[in-house]
């Protein structure tokens, strides 16, 4: 007679596992996509807020380079200002291009000169302080603290963030529900198995561990597959540069850095799956078997 190996107590090629694995992989894939886009949105908002908070623009409306230079001097000496420099007429013209066309700007058009101000990260002065200082020097100059942009940007980033988090929460719930469903189905199908193991003297923990392990492995496997797929898709999107909007460009900058989130997904899946299975079985045993 051939060597007889100790075989698994739980049937390990359960015909139900194939599609279950498939469903879990898809759910993980989607959850991963939302996790990354949520992480990107969070990062983007922080990134933009930081960028916008650390920068102001001062507009010298008469376009006079000397006035601009005067403003630069005053600003450089203020507390909280890291650096300040005046833009060139060319830069200003570029900004107007979308509206006036490139060759259509007459040389005598008095285009306002912009002075860019970099602020310290902490304790930076607000726009009224800056305009106060400039007005004190007799300069009629307007200060733009980019609040309008900051608000619009962070509002749309927040809605993306909110949506991603909501979808993520839903998918997560779906994942847990699927695991719970599969466990219950597994238990229902293996009712006799559980009962026999119980009556033959297996401890509750031993039986629960059997089912827990099964779902830990399933969670790890489907988590790794789904997250891997998601990583590939995201990398593809970033590299392929789908979407040429500035929002997408910011994503690209941040995107790769956030892919580590995906490493968590299979772990979370495995823990959720294993835990759900383990405790469903324990509860079931306590409830239905002496």
């Amino acid at each position: 007679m051939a060597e007889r190996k100790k075989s698994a107590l739980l049937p390990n090629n359960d015909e139900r596992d194939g599609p279950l694995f498939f469903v879990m992989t898809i759910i993980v894939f989607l959850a991963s996509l939302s996790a990354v886009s949520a992480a990107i949105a969070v990062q983007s908002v922080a990134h933009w807020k930081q960028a916008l908070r650390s920068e102001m623009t001062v507009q010298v409306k008469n376009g006079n380079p000397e006035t601009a230079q005067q403003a630069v001097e005053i600003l450089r000496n203020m507390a909280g200002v890291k650096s300040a420099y005046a833009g060139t007429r060319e830069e200003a013209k570029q900004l107007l291009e979308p509206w006036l066309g490139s060759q259509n700007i007459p040389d005598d058009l008095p285009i306002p000169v912009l002075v860019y101000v970099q602020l310290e990260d902490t304790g930076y002065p607000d726009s009224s302080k800056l305009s106060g200082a400039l007005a004190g020097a007799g300069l009629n100059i307007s200060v733009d603290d980019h609040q309008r942009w900051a608000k619009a940007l962070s509002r749309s980033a927040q809605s993306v963030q909110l949506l991603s988090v909501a979808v993520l929460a839903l998918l997560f719930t779906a994942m847990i529900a699927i695991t719970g469903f599969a466990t219950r189905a597994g238990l229902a199908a293996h009712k006799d198995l559980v009962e026999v193991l119980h009556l033959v003297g297996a401890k509750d923990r031993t039986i629960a561990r059997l089912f827990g392990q099964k779902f830990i492995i399933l969670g790890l496997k489907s988590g790794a597959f789904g997250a891997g797929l998601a990583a590939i898709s995201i990398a593809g999107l970033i590299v392929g540069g789908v979407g040429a909007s500035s929002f997408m460009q910011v994503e690209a900058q941040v995107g790769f850095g956030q892919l580590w989130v995906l490493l968590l997904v299979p772990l979370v899946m495995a823990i959720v799956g294993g835990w759900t299975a383990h405790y469903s079985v324990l509860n079931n045993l306590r409830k239905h078997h002496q």
Partner: protein
Amino acid sequence: MSLSHIGLRYGNGPEVLQDINLELQQGSMQFLTGPSGAGKTSLLRLIYLALRPSRGFVQLFGRDASLASRDELALLRRRIGVVFQGFELLNHLSVFENVALPLRFTGKQHDSYKRDVEDLLSWVGLGKMLDALPDTLSGGEKQRVAIARAVVAKPDLLIADEPTGNVDPQMGQRLMRLFSELNRLGTTVLIASHDIGLIETFPVDVYTLVDGRLSFRAGKNKGGERDGRA
């Protein structure tokens, strides 16, 4: 093993068992009989700790079952071998694995019991079916696997519920010899059976359950009729 003042009802139904008192001496062997639906299986389920009585006490190996923790109950169950009326084999495990199941939970090594299991299966006539799955067995073959699983760990107490209902009379005799053999080695044996022909051929005590009440008849070679309170 002793039951005292046991009552049992399922849900809100009538009492299936009423005021049962039963004490089995260590190393004794007895039959339990009675009409279909009398409560034999229920009584056995109380003894092998699958069920809690509605009232009264179950004592096993000197331990009150109602006071034992779930883990202690598991340990007590390992000392009991059970032949279930419905066999309760695991369909995804081979005949060999099914029979070896109780040994796995005692932490024994596969190599140490391999021969024993194979010998036992040969004795019950299944030596050629070690690797078969239960689904492919005949009714009587399943029953013999169930019996082999119950006796393989040489339990202190053996409970068999209708263990010969699906085998021919010769095989029935052979299985009974297996139980006697085990009994001679010190195992307490309790067998529920309808098979009066079979019971008559053994000189052991017989309990009869009728309408949830127990009465006792000593084995032919032992003595006269007396009350169930053993």
